[in-house]
């Protein structure tokens, strides 16, 4: 008699879960078809054969080992940023500032690596540099968080402002204190000596350290958000800050904590860009991965397990589209068109989901 309602109640979420999964894939399918139809239309208008465009998109991303390596090297910062954003989205913050957090992480990493030039124990400096990257991103995010909780500035505007400041900081460093001997250039600071490069493995030219750190970040995020109090508390505050306060939580403190997590992961991504990919600080060190990560998280429906897959898909698109202008003589802006469509399709599906959920509940 007593176990009956438990069984009933346990089967209900199972059904709900399968419905959610079905819905999730339905939404992805819908988004991709919108993008596909639009991309085909644009390609036809541009006079390029759509099929071969998609073929080259595929070949350009997964066609060879080095290309796959390139994709994975894009996947790493994208996934790291997306993991961090999961914390801020949980608590209902739009951390647009993730871009700047990547940049400041890169700056901190560069700072440590510069002091490490010519010193013994280069590996220790690499480790320290990555740690500094995470801390730098965290500090930058914390500043945005304080602007929000203490200054009453909307986190979107605060983050956007901090992005500009970060970009300015990088340009100033490259053309000022950290300029190359001789002449300052947009191509960035002086290359680090090889012993300060993050080691890469095999033909993929992928850094095992970065890859492992990213997988670790996904696992930690998944566990924290699901099983730790912080995950529950973030979600409670995101769902209703006033009620959460009555439950004894301090929304302001948790907002700062979520920002630190997001900034930390983003800063680590920036550090890996510096130490593993470019081996110097360049103006476009963030490669817009922060903004792209916002879309990854939305397309992944804020689900930590879907983030790596979606990030991989985005990375393929990013890398594969480099091919298009070369082989098909399509203007290089086509890649931007496809990504722009993706952005809009994601947002449209997002709105459609919110609306249908509202209709379903009333």
């Amino acid at each position, binding site marked *: 008699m007593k176990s009956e309602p438990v069984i009933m109640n346990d089967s209900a979420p199972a059904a709900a879960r399968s419905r959610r999964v079905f819905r999730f894939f339905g939404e992805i399918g819908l988004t991709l078809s919108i993008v596909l139809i639009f991309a085909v239309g644009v390609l036809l208008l541009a006079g390029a054969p759509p099929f071969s465009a998609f073929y080259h998109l595929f070949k350009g991303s997964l066609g060879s080992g080095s290309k796959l390596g390139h994709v994975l090297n894009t996947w790493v910062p994208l996934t790291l940023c997306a993991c961090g954003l999961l914390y801020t989205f949980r608590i209902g913050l739009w951390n647009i500032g993730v871009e700047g957090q990547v940049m400041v992480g890169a700056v901190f990493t560069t700072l440590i690596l510069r002091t490490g030039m010519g010193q013994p124990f280069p590996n220790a400096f690499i480790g320290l540099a990555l740690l500094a990257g995470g801390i730098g991103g965290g500090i930058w995010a914390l500043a945005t968080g304080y602007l929000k909780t203490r200054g009453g500035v909307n986190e979107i505007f605060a983050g956007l402002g901090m992005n500009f400041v970060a970009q300015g900081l990088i340009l100033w460093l490259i053309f000022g204190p950290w300029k190359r001997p001789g002449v300052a250039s947009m191509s960035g600071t002086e290359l680090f000596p090889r012993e300060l490069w993050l080691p890469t493995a095999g033909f993929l030219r992928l850094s095992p350290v970065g890859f492992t750190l990213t997988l670790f970040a996904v696992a930690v995020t998944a566990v924290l958000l699901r099983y*730790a109090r912080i995950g529950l508390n973030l979600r*409670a505050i995101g769902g*209703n800050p006033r009620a959460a306060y009555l*439950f004894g939580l301090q929304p302001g403190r948790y907002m700062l904590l979520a920002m630190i997590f997001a900034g930390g992961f983003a800063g680590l991504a920036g550090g890996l860009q510096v130490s593993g990919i470019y081996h110097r600080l360049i103006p476009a060190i963030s490669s817009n991965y922060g903004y792209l990560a916002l879309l990854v998280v939305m397309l992944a429906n804020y689900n930590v397990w879907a983030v790596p897959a979606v990030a991989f898909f985005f990375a393929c698109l990013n890398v594969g589209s480099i091919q298009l202008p070369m082989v098909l003589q399509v203007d290089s802006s086509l890649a931007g068109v496809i990504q722009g469509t993706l952005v809009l399709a994601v947002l449209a599906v997002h709105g459609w989901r919110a609306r249908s959920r509202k209709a379903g509940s009333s």
Partner: protein
Amino acid sequence: MRVQLENIHKHYGNIRANDGIGLTVEPGTIHGILGENGAGKSTLMKILSGFTPRTDGRILLDGVPAEYRSPAEAAARGIGMLYQDPLDFPQLTVLDNFRLGGPTPKTRGARRRLLTLNRDLDFALPPGAQTGGLTVGERQQLEILRLMDMGVGVLILDEPTTGISATQKATLFAALRRMADTGKSVILVSHKLEDVEALCDRVTVLRRGRVSGEAEKPFRPDRLMEMMFGTPPDPPERRRIRPGDPLLTLDRVHAAGGRTGLVDCSVTIREGEVVGLAGLEGSGQGVFLRLAAGLTIPRQGMIRFRNVPLNGTAYPFLKSEGVHFLPGSRLEEGLIPEMDIAEHMALASDKEGFWVHWADGRQTAVSRIERYKIKGGPHSPAGSLSGGNQQRLLLSFLSPNPSLLLLENPTRGLDVASAHWVWQHLQSACPAGAGIIFSSAELDEILMIADRVLVFFEGAVIKDVQSEATDLRELGLAIAGKA
């Protein structure tokens, strides 16, 4: 217009809010829909007014089946509804609100229409006044005028006497009677017997989504009570406790918030006391409770809890001292709509540690669901529960050994039997020295439960009296400002 509802069903998942309701409203009559909160009255009226689609059933207007999908389409067929919360634009003038959505767009014509309707119904709305500055009752009058101007043949009123003064109620009832006399159908939704008795020609009583009975004027209150509740439950036993040491002291406190704020309030609440806060909704009771809970800061004056002065936001300290605040707006302040019951239990759990004790949360959820008779499972999101069940969920968070309970409309949305059960449960904390301060819109409830009554009017406590020393009539007058 003659309105016939046939076999109306409305299901939300497994819950049947309306389960085959049929009723007929004759033209020129005032028809009451009576029932406890949660009986299905509001759902039925939302279906009739086109606000909510029905699961099954037919609506006939003057014998013709009618299909409409929105309140606008319903209005085009002559069905107008007056909602509990006024649907107007506070920033606009009375005249502008009157013109909006009405058939008279020209200012001068609209002004004349407004004044004519004003006179017909014996209202006194100044066309140039800003709507936000009006009382709830006046805004209701404005809404009625607007609906009349649109030419509705059926007027539905959802709990229209909540939050308005006795004079306004008399004016409203006279106006409704006049409208019925001109051949319009008026449907009055209420859970208050006295409203229905005073106004209606015929009444349909709903209970748990079904029609439990119908009656014609003159009504027999005991029969109506029986239709509403089944066998009337016994009121909970009053346990009198001698008040102990001062628990909460307010000294000349002024505070902002709500409609009126709180004005020059000096009150001492003692251990074991049960204090009822009476007054029209938003007359300062909410501000009082939030000040006592340390959620807002007084502008002036001193608040002490057990001789500890409270300054700033003292809520976390008070919470650790066993002070519990139960907010009246459940989904806005009390619960996290998308989180389920088990998650709420895990959140409310006082277990320390890094990990969430999910098994504990689920177990607590199962036992509280059973104990508090919540209709839902551990994995039902709080937002999907009905109002009454949300209230039970909120009540289930109150700790067993509180020092002071601050309850805003604690039994709103509960039927009488559950309300009694809740009160028995809450009052069991009093012998151990706990104080209870609660607000309620029902004077009966306050007189039945409280040892002492504070009456709020326009932000001030205008009456502070032992409940034995007063009665319904005196409190009713005090609420209207005649202390």
